[in-house]
Structures are given as structure tokens and as C-alpha cells.
């Protein structure tokens, strides 16, 4: 690990301002991904700003009837929250499908959104990787790509976003709230928060330098049968090959977002018009234009079957 200086921030505005004062600074909350990457010297911050004392750890009702989730709410607390379990069940299910009990006790809401990819070429510093080291090429294209993205890919990168939580937040139309070093705040719809790789795969999100996430808000509950289905190589503590977050209403209409298939949680609202026509019809539009590799082409069929299973479960209840 490279040496770094360390400070404990006392307010969101202070933290963002400190980040501007120290080029090369990073915020640390749970640290479960950042510490891993720092040990491998994939992340090499020169200054760490500990944001754990900012008090952003509450879940509150919003005047609009939704929920405001503080950036530092741990994954365990969010999954266990009574309102989340009752009104946003897909989010609770997604959270408990991710990581391990120990990691969920550390990982925060904002940190979960900011996880880096788990692409093995990103982690292996002997391999080329445009995300880790821009301009060096992509080891996964033409390499071992079974876990990689099938849609929204570029010639520079086929990595996936690893979060389960973010997929549920995408289907729930969450909004990310931030504060910037100049003290101004902004609200970013989750659909616009994560980027596709394009020719700049080293940039994961639209956050600007020094911008700190303060909360994620959920709109008023929309009811429906909410299901998160994760398909992976083992039954627990593994990243998704594919995952489906779905909200299905009584009349068969609904929403669906996918994990494990793209550089961001994947949702195409237009495809949801096909919900009453079944999984095959939905997936045909949701994954139209997919560019899988020989090794991960199975994901398209897997998404279709996972969604079919989710729709059958929703109908049966």
C-alpha cells in the first residue's frame, strides 16, 4: 500500500472541500472495496478522508412519501429497515443477496454504488486494462470473459458493475444526492449516475472531483410484487452472473432491471411495455443489440430464463 495522509471529516461540506484541497484524495466509508484495491496499488490515494463521522446514517421519510437513505447507512441496516422490507422489498432482497454478513455490516449505501468492477483483468496488475491503466488495452476482450458484459460494451472495456443494490435502486428510480466542494448540491437520477465504458472506461460515474454522495432517495412506493433473482456460480457470497430486479403489478405490467450484463445496472423502460407478453418478448427488447463474447453468450438465455422464473413467481402469488 502506498503511504497516505489521513483525516476525519466532520461535515459533508468539509469533506468535499478537503477533497478539493488534496488532489489525489479519496473518501473512505466502509472501505471494503477501496482497501482491497489500495493493497494491490490499483487505487493509490495520497490522502484519505474518513467520512464515517458525518452523521449521514439515518433513513427518513421524505415529504413526497418516499425514503431518504443516508450515504453511510450500512447495507445491513438498509436491508433490515422495516419500511424498506415492506415497501421496497426488491432492495432488501438485493442487499442480502450481496457479499457476506461481515461485509454488509461495513459496506455503506454510497460505497456500494461506487464499487469498482470485479473484472479479473482489472485486479491483475500484470494484465492490460483500460479501466485501471487507460490506453493499455483490454485483456478480457479475446480473453477469459465468461463473467463479462454483453450489452453497452465498447472496444475498450467489457467490464460489469458488480452491485446488487444498485440494480434494485435502478428499478426503483432512486436519486443520488451529492455535495460539491463549492458547497452546492445536486440530485442525479440513478439512470444517469453510472456511465457506459465508451472510450473512457476508467470513469465509472458522473461524479466530479471532490463530489461526495450524501444520500440516496427513493420515490413513493409503487407496490407490486417485488422480486430480486440472482444467478451465480455458488449459492452464497458470489457476484452475479446475471440478476433480475422486477416489480410486477397485478395487471402484468411492471419494471425490470438487470445486473451482471453491463457496465451499469441495465434497464430500458421501453422494453417494459412487453411485460404482459412474457420474458422472451421483454428480453428481446431489453438486450437488443447485445454483443456477447463466445464465452458469455449464455447470459442472454440465462436472463430470459431468470426473468421467466420471476414472472411465474409473481403471477403465482
Amino acid at each position, binding site marked *: *500500500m*502506498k*503511504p*497516505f*495522509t*489521513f483525516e*476525519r471529516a466532520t461535515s459533508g461540506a468539509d469533506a468535499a472541500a478537503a477533497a478539493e484541497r488534496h488532489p489525489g484524495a479519496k473518501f*473512505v466509508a*466502509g*472501505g*471494503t472495496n477501496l*482497501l*482491497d484495491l*489500495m*493493497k494491490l496499488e490499483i487505487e493509490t490515494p495520497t490522502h*484519505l478522508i*474518513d467520512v*464515517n*463521522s458525518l452523521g449521514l446514517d439515518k433513513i427518513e421519510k421524505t415529504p413526497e412519501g418516499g425514503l431518504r437513505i443516508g450515504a453511510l447507512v450500512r447495507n*445491513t441496516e438498509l*436491508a*433490515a429497515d422495516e419500511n424498506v*422490507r*415492506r415497501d421496497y*422489498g426488491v432492495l*432488501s*432482497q438485493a442487499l*442480502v*443477496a450481496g*457479499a*457476506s*454478513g*461481515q*461485509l454488509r*455490516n*461495513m459496506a455503506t449505501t454510497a460505497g456500494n454504488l461506487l464499487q469498482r468492477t470485479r473484472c479479473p483483468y482489472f485486479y491483475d496488475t500484470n494484465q492490460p486494462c483500460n479501466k485501471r491503466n487507460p490506453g493499455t488495452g483490454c485483456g478480457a476482450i479475446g480473453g477469459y470473459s465468461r463473467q463479462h458484459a454483453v450489452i453497452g460494451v465498447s472496444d475498450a472495456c467489457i467490464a460489469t458493475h458488480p452491485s446488487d443494490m444498485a440494480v434494485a435502486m435502478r428499478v426503483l428510480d432512486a436519486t443520488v444526492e451529492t455535495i460539491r466542494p463549492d458547497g452546492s448540491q445536486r440530485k442525479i437520477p440513478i439512470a444517469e449516475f453510472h456511465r457506459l465504458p465508451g472510450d473512457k472506461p476508467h470513469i465509472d460515474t458522473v461524479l466530479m472531483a471532490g463530489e461526495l454522495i450524501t444520500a440516496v432517495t427513493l420515490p413513493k412506493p409503487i407496490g407490486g410484487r417485488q422480486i430480486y433473482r440472482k444467478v451465480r456460480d455458488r*449459492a*452464497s*457470497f458470489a457476484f452475479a452472473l446475471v440478476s433480475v430486479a422486477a416489480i410486477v403489478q397485478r395487471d402484468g405490467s411492471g419494471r425490470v432491471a438487470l445486473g451482471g450484463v453491463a457496465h451499469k445496472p441495465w434497464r430500458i423502460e421501453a422494453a417494459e411495455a412487453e411485460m404482459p407478453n412474457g420474458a422472451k418478448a421483454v428480453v428481446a427488447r431489453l438486450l437488443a443489440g447485445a454483443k456477447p463474447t463466445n464465452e458469455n453468450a449464455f447470459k442472454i438465455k440465462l436472463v430470459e430464463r431468470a426473468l421467466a422464473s420471476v414472472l411465474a413467481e409473481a403471477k403465482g402469488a
Partner: protein
Amino acid sequence: MRTGGEHMSNPEDCELKGGASEESEIVHNDTGITRREFIIAGTATVAATMLPTLAYGQTPQQPKLVQPQMAKVALKVNGTSHELELDTRTTLLDALREHLRLTGSKKGCDQGQCGACTVIVNGRRINSCLTLAAMHQGDSVTTIEGLGTPDNLHPMQQAFVKCDGYQCGYCTAGQICSAVAMLNEIKAGIPSHAMADITAQPKLTGAELRERMSGNICRCGAYSNIAEAITEIAGRTV
């Protein structure tokens, strides 16, 4: 049935094998050195015997010297307050093992996958390898040494001994800390992936136990005995 010469079936021996008591700087031989010192001495010997081969090559490049940055942190560990000044890079695990000499918590994978480093911080189990000591200002940490002692075992430690919930013992401290906190999570109603209905109150079934303990790997594969030990304690407390 397990095989291997290291496996001792006498329950009294288990106390010494388990990560719970580990060596605890106890001297088990007549040389007067602990296992920890013995391993360190052995490593130095190997390094010394390797030195001459380097002399044939070019002078090895001197690694660039790095200036460590220090940070102060106050921790309460097993009820005792400590004021430490540490290199900012020190993980909580390294602070416990290398600075406070609490070597019960183990470094397995050092990347949050194996759970051998599990400790309980402010009542919650976490991977101490994936968090910096400096991030725990004012926190209260319980390690395996704080759960029980060789003379006064925690019930979960007793159950692991009774049920033979280990073979080599390396994962045991993490398994026990994790199991103790996991039962409290169930009591607190924290849901898991094993629940068919996310709004229900959790119960400790076999499937629940396996799901909730999936962050603790046992390379010897003592899982059935570990599950038996945890179930025995859960029967009393959940």
C-alpha cells in the same frame, strides 16, 4: 471422518489447538520459545541461506524509500483502552496482531473473503483486514481473546470444542466471533438471503445458518461440526 496426524480427538487437547486460545504466547516445548518466535526464527534462517545467490547477480535495485504517515487512534479492545499512533496504512487486523499482540484473530486471505480475521466492533462482526485502524476512533472491539479465556471459555468456544468444530484451527477464531455476532443478528431480526419472505422474522434453520456463515471459510471442511456447535448454542439463545 477426518484424517491426518494433526487431528487430536482428545477434547482436552482441542483447547490448545483452537484459534480461541491459540498459542497465546504459551510455551508448549522445552526450548523456551513460542510457536510464533519459532516461525519468525525459521524464516530468518531461510532468508540467510538465500543471500549468497544474490551476490552473483547485479546489485539489486534499492526499493524507493517511503515515508510512512502516522495517525493517532484510541480503541477499546476487549474492555481495555489503548492510545495508538500507527502508520495510516495499518489495518485493524494488523493493529490487533502486531501492535496489541492479540494474535487470536488470523490473517487468511487479507481481502475479506475468508473471514479468519472476523472481530466484533460495536457489537457487529466485520472483516478486520478490510478496515483501517484509524477508521475506528473510539470504537469498541471484541476479539476472540475477549470472548473467553482458556480457563473460562465462552459458551460458543465450549461448543466448538465439544463438537470438534475445527481441524487445523486457523479459521476458528473468526468462525466463533462470527457465530456469536450472527446469532445476535438473528435476534435483532436482520434478514438474510435464505428467507423466502423478506418481511418475516428470521429463524435459525440449517439453510439460514449456512447462508449467514458464508463469509467464513474452513479449508479443512469442518463445516458440519461447526454447524452443529452453532446450532447447539442457538438452541439456548434464539
